[in-house]
């Protein structure tokens, strides 16, 4: 009985010792919401922590979920009572909408060796286009087609300047049906030859720091005759058409000329 009691006391003492010597990183906010401005190139999240335990914590690894995000620790080791932060930098690039990126942190904290930190960025661009491409079939009536541009309401865009990279298309801008909306009316001069143009769109806004946007307009090459299978002998001509859009593909043998 006495032996059993001694063992029990021993186990409890050991457990108490293990409990008292522990490392624990306490995170202020494992999830951060950001709303970068429309001229911002990056969104930066600061994940603050404190070691509330009484032994040091070591970072074993810090990995971001995608190549667009980098994460850095201030220290490799966090002493008891020490505070610090992991900085996650998300490169916005051409991304829009809600972006969720994660940073996985591994430590030697036995209680919680891994934690996933979340950076959520809501990116509202200066302008959004719908659609970004307008096209006409070869020979189609050259009627205007509309690209709708929705402007960020905080940007106070007064007007848009639209320029076509080739004289084959004209573009006219009108106010849209809703506030902060524009209608870009694009029209080809001719739809009998395949052409491609980039439409460069420049918003006139005090909030814009030189951002330019692009949409595209195309007159398609003549469609291949239906039922034409892609065979090794036709592959070469298809491939050529992909790389030389300005030159319409020759009509298939036997088809009427336009």
């Amino acid at each position: 009985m006495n032996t059993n009691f001694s063992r029990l006391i021993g186990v409890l003492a050991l457990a108490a010792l293990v409990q008292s010597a522990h490392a624990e990183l306490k995170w202020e906010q494992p999830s951060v919401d950001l709303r970068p401005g429309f001229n911002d190139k990056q969104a930066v999240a600061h994940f603050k922590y404190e070691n509330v335990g009484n032994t040091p914590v070591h970072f074993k690894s810090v990995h971001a979920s995608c190549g667009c995000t980098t994460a850095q620790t201030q220290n490799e080791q966090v002493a008891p009572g020490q505070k610090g932060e992991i900085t996650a930098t998300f490169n916005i690039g051409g991304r829009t909408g809600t972006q969720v990126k994660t940073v996985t942190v591994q430590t030697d904290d036995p209680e919680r060796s891994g934690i996933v930190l979340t950076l959520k960025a809501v990116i509202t661009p200066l302008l959004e286009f719908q659609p970004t491409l307008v096209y006409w079939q070869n020979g189609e009536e050259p009627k205007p087609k509309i690209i709708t541009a929705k402007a960020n309401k905080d940007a106070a865009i007064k007007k848009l300047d639209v320029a076509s990279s080739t004289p084959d298309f004209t573009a006219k801008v009108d106010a849209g049906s809703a506030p902060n909306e524009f209608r870009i009316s694009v029209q080809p001069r001719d739809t009998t030859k395949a052409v491609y143009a980039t439409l460069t769109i420049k918003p006139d806004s005090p909030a814009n720091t030189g951002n330019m946007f692009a949409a595209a307009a195309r007159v398609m090459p003549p469609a291949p005759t239906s039922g034409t299978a892609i065979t090794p002998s036709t592959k070469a001509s298809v491939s050529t058409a992909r790389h030389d859009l300005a030159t319409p593909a020759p009509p298939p043998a036997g088809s009427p000329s336009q």
Partner: protein
Amino acid sequence: MKVSAVRQALLLIALAFVPAIGEAIYFRDKVSWQSPDRSSEMVNLDQAQSWGANAIWVDARPDNEFEQDHVPGAIPLNEDRWNELLPTLLAQWSLEKKIVVYCSSQSCNASREVARRLRDEAGLKDVFVLRGGWDEWLKNRR
């Protein structure tokens, strides 16, 4: 004895449910209840290759990975430089062509996002995501 063992097993299962339910409620937004893959938008490598010259391959990986190696003839289109790279694809696209977008592996999300934007923003049809991505391509190239 047997009844007691069963009772204990049931008790353990019931106890295990308590934290499981709590976790499911707490992490509700973080649990993916549905697969993000829409099977209709995915394409296997064999099928994509069978499209031959009728397919446009789009590499959604970062520039440095594209520069190291890529599917022959693929067009780079990543979200880091979306506005700069998109015109090249739009200039090569035509109605009868199918677009096959890939990123590094099955688990990456860039190809799905690029495919979604091509459909939603540019209005392109027949945009597919390569199942297994670049890893799958490499596996079959060897």
